[in-house]
């Protein structure tokens, strides 16, 4: 643990470097990550990039970590074309982990703390909302394909060599651990909530290819939303993502930049089993980022930039999303 003295400055340097790069007009040099966990939030575009199992090892990388995500939205605060805007700023601090159960099964879990702010162009008083968000737990089955040919280069082959392809299937739930405030639903952006108050089902299918230098990771996830105590039900959500990453090994560490796309589509929100007008939508993001692994620590940063979107009848506009995290490999 005394190494932490080295890790902290490294992390800070990394952050500074990241911010520096982020301000450059040419974003080629970027990074992303491939964690199976998502924020599982019901805000448009909040579902972060997904991806392959953990970092570096390309085997199950199990970890516990902290993640910070910042996302902002601009919403129309009224029913007219020239209605003033409100700005929603969503900060999520998340404790997340991926824990092995058996060789083929593992579980992932996350517990967010939400810190939300909203400002109004009209001059209405700012709103702030914070508290524990909705926890989620997903059980995963990983199907690792085996290579066809025997690998003679391994001196002590214990099992058949693994191929570079794998599939993951996940089933889980998002729990209503965050508080849902009904009065907030009258706003144009109903995502301004610490929690949805509902128990939701999560179904995921992932595919990964991990080559020596280049890898690919993709994930499809369906969120089956439940109804909460207020007879309010967020629309079911479909999320997809695909990323290509590149491994740059150093002597005692490695860097893994990535680039890809992710998107969400949302069905209409229902209340008292009646669909609410202008509450469906879709969002396509371009994503890029990097992971940096050194020792037991994995540092990551990524950004998602909207390419096209149509949220809540065009009344809500998602801005860039930034995520940074630090994980400790278990």
């Amino acid at each position: 643990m005394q190494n932490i003295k080295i890790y902290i400055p490294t992390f800070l340097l990394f952050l500074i470097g990241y911010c520096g790069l982020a301000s450059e007009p040419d974003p080629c040099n970027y990074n992303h990550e491939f964690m199976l966990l998502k924020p599982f939030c019901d805000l448009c575009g909040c579902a972060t990039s997904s991806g392959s199992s953990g970092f570096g090892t390309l085997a199950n990388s199990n970890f516990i970590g902290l993640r910070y995500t910042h996302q902002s939205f601009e919403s129309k605060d009224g029913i007219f074309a020239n209605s003033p805007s409100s700005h929603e700023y969503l900060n999520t601090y998340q404790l997340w982990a991926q824990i092995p159960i058996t060789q083929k099964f593992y579980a992932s879990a996350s517990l967010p703390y939400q810190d939300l702010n909203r400002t109004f162009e009209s001059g209405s008083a700012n709103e702030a909302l914070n508290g524990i968000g909705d926890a989620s737990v997903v059980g995963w089955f990983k199907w690792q394909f085996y290579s066809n040919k025997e690998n003679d280069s391994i001196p002590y082959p214990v099992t058949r060599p693994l191929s570079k392809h794998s599939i993951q299937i996940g089933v889980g739930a998002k729990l209503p651990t965050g508080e849902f405030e009904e009065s907030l639903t009258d706003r144009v952006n109903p995502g301004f909530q610490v929690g949805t108050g509902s128990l939701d089902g999560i179904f995921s299918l992932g595919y990964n290819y991990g080559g020596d230098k280049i890898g690919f990771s993709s994930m499809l996830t369906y969120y089956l939303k439940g109804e909460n105590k207020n007879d309010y039900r967020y629309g079911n959500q479909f999320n997809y993502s695909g990323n290509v990453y590149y491994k740059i090994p150093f002597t005692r560490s490695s860097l893994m930049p990535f680039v890809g796309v992710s998107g969400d589509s949302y069905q209409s929100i229902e209340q008292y089993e009646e669909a609410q007008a202008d509450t469906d939508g879709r969002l396509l993001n371009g994503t890029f980022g990097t992971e940096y692994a050194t020792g037991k620590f994995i540092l990551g940063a990524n950004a998602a930039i909207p390419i096209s979107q149509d949220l809540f009848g065009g009344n809500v506009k998602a801005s860039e999303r930034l995520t940074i995290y630090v994980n400790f490999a278990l």
Partner: protein
Amino acid sequence: MEVRTTSYHLSIIFIQMKITKIFITLLLCATVISCSNDDNMVESLVGQTGDLIVKFDNGVGDQDLIFDVSYDKSSNESYKLTSVKYIVSNIELTKSDGSTFMYPEIENAFIVDEADANNAGEIYITLNDVPAGDYTKISFGVGIDQERFQKGADGQGNLLAEAQEKEMLWSWATGFRFIRLDGVYSDATVTDEALNIHMGSVGTSLDNYREVSLDAPNTVIVREASTPEVHIKADIAKVFDGQTSVLFADGYNQVHTDETTTPVIADNLMGIFMIHHVHNE
């Protein structure tokens, strides 16, 4: 020794698999439970009352109404407004089964004044003690009907004082102004000429009271513990360009008690309202 170790490992794996199965099963159960829709208990609504909020939101076409902003109308005329007020009365709610509830008469008249709007430009009317129920329609009158007017000053409740304060009353003999738009207009020949639409019934000789019935896009659910908000959009542009398009240059820049122009404005006024959405709590 080796055999024992192996069997130990196997049993560990076996236990782990069992845990996994239990874990997955639990997750599936949780998911299935979350998907099953518990039917709401049939609650008794008899004797239960709640509040209902009607929000009026004035606009011009798809634009929010802002004072002193110039809006184009037909025939190359434009206008700017400095006051927008109108009276709604006889609010009646219709349930999905067709039964109706008329708000108590003495309190059932309101002045919607843009100057009273909140930051979002909405004017709230709160109806108290509305019988709990699922409503699908709201009707109201624009202005004051003859029956109420003929009840005299005592039959007006708080409306009389409020109308005087908001300058929505001529002399008692002439009666209430149903709508009051003040501002200026411009066209090809004049700039910022006075614009005053003060339309009402004229005593008992000219009845410009009109009724409006609006269907709700969602059920309006009134309960003791849940106050729905009916968000009504009022398109002020339709006062001039509604059933009939009128020209300021033709005398519609000053509409007061004239028996020709006031009914045209009254008919146009009837068509300015729509329910934009309903927010249930």
